[in-house]
């Protein structure tokens, strides 16, 4: 239909003009800031030492320093505005602030309503405050322990699931503080940036935060949603990248007495790394984006990456299966190293158990005066829970060895020795029984090194059953932090939060390994039968 009425035509032209002008106005927020001569930044006033009020009522802190440097680099004055967690994004939207630097975690949901600047300038995570001498060196030390937490923290649920904590949830930080003071929990699960503020309080001086931060959530600067791809976004992004390259952020952190964060150290390393061609790894690609390696891993989608990584993320997006051991290089190496260690443990335990069993039986049969002792020792060995034996040797004996002689032992060696001892004791009895049977059949039969194969052949089924059991039990080495399959899997679950996938993979692999060992023993038996070994 032709538009022939003049007033309608006028309206149309007017709307188009307004849209075009509007577009012009939007694209030049950076121009606006420069024309105004002032950068307006929203920061927090209640989150020391990141954003707080000083004695003169001025906004100061880590984030205020970042805002000041932004203004300096843009060559304009700075105006700070106090914002809260609830109104920070709203203030951006209505245009009353240009930039928000207010402890804002980068999430896909927030990316829908604001433009978040990559790279992130800081990160927070879940950590604990514990009383002095709590003897915590590892997150798994908290398994099954009572841990206090404050309601509403984003990590409560996930941390419970990943580390099997017995979480006691309190309404506010005041209640949680009291509970920790009264010894109602072993530790308090809290935001690591909150802990920084708390530990600076002399009242909490003796408390400590001994464990590394988990579930790290990067903090991003935010600008209005319509600024995506604008010169302002690009300028800010370049400034943050420069902060990381120069290590300036770590200086600001130090200035405010914050415990050096792993995030800043890692990011500094990443942004100063050079590739094989001599150029920095983190340089803008042809399309203007940062390469995937320099972006926030948790927020990448399958369209951002290629190859196996693309396939892995696609599987995660479509089917909810997060197989990080397939596409994440770090996880894959960790898992393969665990698999290799488990194979070594299995082989070591089989050989060790056979050695203990055969030697025990030989000694008992050839040295009659030692027979009683061997039998007693074997009986005791069979009645010591292997896990307790591992602890006893690793911690108890290990401590004495270190403090008196300065010797340290490898955890894997200790696990193999203890498991071999336990299983070997059972094999001693099996072999002695088989010897008794042979003696009954052939008077004058004595067990010797050369006749050992006959005894082993007779006791084959029972010995193999013991060996299969020790193969299944090799996972116990994880209790003393030997980096085998279970340790690797729980570490990946802790980092990625994918217990369903990892536990099924772990179970399947162990199942297949046990089956493989069984098949090998069956094949050996078939061979023996074929060759007429009886």
């Amino acid at each position, binding site marked *: 239909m032709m538009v022939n009425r003049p007033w309608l035509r006028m309206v149309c032209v007017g709307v188009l003009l307004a849209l075009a002008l509007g577009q012009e106005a939007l694209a030049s927020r950076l121009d606006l800031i420069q024309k105004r001569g002032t950068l307006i930044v929203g920061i927090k006033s209640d989150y020391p030492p990141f954003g707080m009020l000083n004695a003169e009522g001025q906004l100061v802190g880590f984030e205020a320093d970042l805002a000041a440097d932004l203004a300096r680099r843009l060559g304009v004055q700075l105006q700070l505005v106090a914002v809260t967690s609830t109104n920070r994004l709203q203030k951006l939207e209505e245009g009353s602030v240009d930039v928000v630097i207010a402890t804002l975690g980068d999430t896909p949901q927030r990316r829908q309503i604001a433009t978040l600047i990559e790279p992130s300038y800081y990160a927070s995570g879940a950590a604990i405050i514990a009383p002095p001498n709590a003897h915590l060196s590892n997150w798994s030390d908290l398994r099954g322990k009572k841990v206090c937490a404050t309601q509403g923290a984003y990590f409560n649920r996930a941390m419970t699931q990943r580390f*099997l904590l017995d979480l006691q949830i309190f309404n506010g930080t005041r209640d949680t503080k009291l509970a920790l003071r009264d010894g109602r929990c072993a530790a308090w699960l809290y935001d690591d940036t909150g802990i920084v503020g708390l530990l600076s309080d002399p009242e909490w001086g003796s408390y400590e935060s001994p464990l590394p931060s988990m579930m790290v959530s990067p903090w991003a600067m935010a600008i209005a949603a319509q600024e995506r791809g604008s010169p302002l976004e690009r300028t800010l992004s370049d400034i943050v990248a420069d902060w990381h390259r120069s290590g300036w952020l770590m200086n600001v952190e130090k200035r405010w007495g914050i415990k050096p964060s792993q995030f800043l150290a890692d990011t500094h390393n990443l942004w100063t790394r050079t590739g094989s061609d001599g150029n920095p790894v983190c340089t803008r690609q042809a399309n203007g984006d940062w390469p995937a390696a320099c972006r926030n891993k948790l927020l990448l989608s399958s369209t951002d990456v290629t190859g196996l990584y693309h396939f892995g993320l696609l599987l995660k997006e479509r089917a909810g299966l997060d197989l990080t051991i397939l596409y994440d290089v770090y996880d894959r190496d960790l898992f393969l190293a665990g698999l290799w260690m488990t194979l070594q443990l299995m082989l070591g335990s089989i050989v060790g158990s056979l050695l203990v069993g055969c030697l025990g039986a030989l000694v008992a049969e050839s040295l009659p005066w030692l027979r009683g002792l061997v039998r007693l020792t074997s009986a005791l060995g069979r009645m010591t829970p292997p896990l307790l034996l591992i602890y006893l040797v690793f911690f108890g004996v290990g401590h004495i060895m270190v403090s008196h002689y300065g010797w340290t032992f490898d955890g894997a060696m200790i696990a193999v020795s203890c498991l071999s001892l336990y299983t070997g004791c059972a094999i001693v009895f099996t072999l002695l029984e088989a010897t008794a049977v042979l003696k009954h059949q052939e008077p004058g039969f004595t067990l010797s090194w050369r006749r050992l194969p006959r005894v082993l052949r007779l006791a084959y089924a029972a010995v193999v059953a013991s060996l299969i059991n020790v193969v299944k039990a090799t*996972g116990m080495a994880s209790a003393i932090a030997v980096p085998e399959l279970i340790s690797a899997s729980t570490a990946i679950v802790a980092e990625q939060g994918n217990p369903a996938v990892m536990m099924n993979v772990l179970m399947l692999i162990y199942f297949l390994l046990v089956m493989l060992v069984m098949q090998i023993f069956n094949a050996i038996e078939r061979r023996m039968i074929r060759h007429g070994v009886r």
Partner: protein
Amino acid sequence: MAFAEIVQILMVWTPFLLEGFVWNILISLVAMTIGTVIGAVLARMRLSERRMVAGVSLTLTELTRNIPTFVFLFYLAFLIPVEFEFAGRLYLFPAWFKASLALSVAVVGFVSDNLSVAWRHWRNHDRLAALLFVPNWTTYLLIIVMASSTASVIGVGEIVSRCNVVIAAVGSDEAMLWIYMYAICYFFLLCFPLNWAMGRVKQRLLAHVHRAAV
């Protein structure tokens, strides 16, 4: 650290550790109960006339033999939620019960194998040979009691994890050796007499069986 001091520490903490050991026995008994019930069903199926039923039972028994209990413990700990809702009410799924479930898998295989043999003897009116199941079952219970110490790795408050609590509370590294040794004594005290008694029962039963056969 003086000997008297160590004895003093062990005495003070004995009730706490003893309570932990009661948990070990409880976890094991629950595991044996669950495992025996399921294992008995499998054993009965193995004796079935229908080859399909017997085959299914054999496959399931084989499956339980391949499942490593220790790994299964982690599997259940991570995958069964801490609480579950049933008929509009929230129930807790305690960690010790997860441990019992994990251990019961091994019991299923054991009972399926041993009870099907005993059942056959019983049918052949070989009652004494069938009774051998009782000492075998009790000996297996002791193996499970020892395995129940692994529940400590998922945070169940049994004797081994209580040892670690005591060590942290005492704050002395030298005490470690003695506390673990003391805990081992509990296992000896339970297992030694029972194992010996069951060995005797088994011998006497076997002697009767042989005499009957001759």
